[in-house]
């Protein structure tokens, strides 16, 4: 499989603090990559650098063959980013909100409207399309956020804690939606999450980041093999994660 995201020695410092240190990451086309790590480990900073929204102090990144520092706009055309705690304009309803994002992407008119309807049905908000976003529940907001990200038909999805604060049912629906998008449209997904169970369920490979450093990368099986040896057949991502975490 081709590599779609690659970073070489990517580093970001804020004054004296180092958020990301010498990150060498490779994400392959068409996979779901679980990006794990405690709060403040530098996951969001990494995502922002990959999008060209934050400038790396050192090192380079390549996303879809483009350098996000110099070609930020082109990268953002191909990559959909769902930030943690995505916000909406309170006075707009779901359709207006999507229309605004569509217009920022240069989509207007009947084509855009048709696409918006499809997306609202896809994320299960077809009934709620006329409701103001201020009245949306957390789960509905998260789903609307996904619809907004999908409007540009991205090749790559960056999802930052998409299931945080969702009820179990909503979280499962969202995870299933991500899996569907990956399987049916071949989207590469970079998923940052604390919910290890869900990550284990859908990720092809995972990376564990602690204190700005990527300390492990690979498929869950290979990480388990490294930590527990071949003889242990039953393991959860949680056990692997805690093992790595205690070693640091």
């Amino acid at each position: 499989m081709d590599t779609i995201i690659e970073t070489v020695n990517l580093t970001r410092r804020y004054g004296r603090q180092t958020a990301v240190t010498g990150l060498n990451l490779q994400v392959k086309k068409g996979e779901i990559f679980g990006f794990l790590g405690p709060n403040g480990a530098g996951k969001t900073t990494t995502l922002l650098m990959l999008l060209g929204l934050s400038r790396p102090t050192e090192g380079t990144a390549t996303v879809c063959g483009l350098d996000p520092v110099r070609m930020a706009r082109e990268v953002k055309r191909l990559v959909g980013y769902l930030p943690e705690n995505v916000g909406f304009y309170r006075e707009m309803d779901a359709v207006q909100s999507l229309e605004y994002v569509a217009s920022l992407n240069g989509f207007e008119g009947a084509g855009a409207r048709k696409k918006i309807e499809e997306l609202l049905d896809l994320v299960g908000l077809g009934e709620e399309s006329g409701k103001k976003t201020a009245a949306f529940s957390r789960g509905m907001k998260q789903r609307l956020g996904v619809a907004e990200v999908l409007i540009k038909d991205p090749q790559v999805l960056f999802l930052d804690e998409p299931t945080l604060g969702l009820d179990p049912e909503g979280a499962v629906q969202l995870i299933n939606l991500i899996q569907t998008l990956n399987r049916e449209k071949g989207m590469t997904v970079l998923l940052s999450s604390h919910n290890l169970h869900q990550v284990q369920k859908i990720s092809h490979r995972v990376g564990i980041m602690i204190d700005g450093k990527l300390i492990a990368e690979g498929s869950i099986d290979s990480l388990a093999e490294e930590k527990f040896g071949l003889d242990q057949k039953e393991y959860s991502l949680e056990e692997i994660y805690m093992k790595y975490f205690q070693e640091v």
Partner: protein
Amino acid sequence: MQGLYAVFRKELQDHLSSYRFVILFALISMVSFITSYMAAVHMRENLEALASTRFPFLMLFSTPGAVFSMVQFVAFFGPLIGLILGFDAINRERAQGTLIKVISQPIYRDAVINGKFLAGVATITLMLVAIVLVISGFGLALVGVVPGIEEIWRLFIYLVISIFYISFWLGLSILFSILFRSIATSALASVALWIFLSFFVSLGAEVVANAVAPIDRQDEVRPEAVLENAQVKGMVSLTSPMVLYTDATATIIDPMRKTTRSIILMGPMEELLSARFQNPLSLGQSIIIVLPHIMALMAITLICFSVSYLVFMLQEVRT
């Protein structure tokens, strides 16, 4: 460009449908009505005496009817329009988490701030043009004078200067909305600076002038000392955009005025001129007199916006 236009359209829509715009517009049009009505009534009563002036139409805007004229009103309270349109431009989006979403779309980052500034300027333009047109119509009906070509030109220039003046305050409040994360802080900071620059600078100018060039009242007053004092005072008070604006519009809206200086600072020829010749200046001459003021006003507006632009472009997107 696609991003700029999308942001501009959305912001303009927001402005025009917001309560604050409606309230502001109602307030300002009400006051403008009252002042110009008073001016018109006053003019009608004294039309005989005013018949000598060649520009009765402009007097609708420049004559203080009851308390102040329309022009003075814009000088005093125009800044509030700019402040109210801009004080939460960036920090509200930051607080509700929409800023990061917007700039992660395929647009240049400056489209956000340019779009917001231009939408504010468009709103200001709309407001001012509407008010000037309504007052003109009002004046036509009440006084029955028809504006000449030159008066229309002068009003047009007055409008352009006013738009720049209010846009300066818009730029300033947008700058504060970038610098301060809290909406209340940025609102307070912009209002504080407005009060300081508009009302306290003139007081401060007097203090500075008396400190730098004191007039000794004990001995006989030296004319040079009085002159110097007035010069210093004039210089310091020009740091207030309101003074700058008042001066810039003075000769434009009142063709009979031939200088922005106070009587003390006039040269002998200027004094002679204003005493002897009761003819209005031509438009070109009026503009030449206040050209430095107009340029300075445009410059501070552009500088203010450029600073906001730079700060916004260099700022981290997170938190």
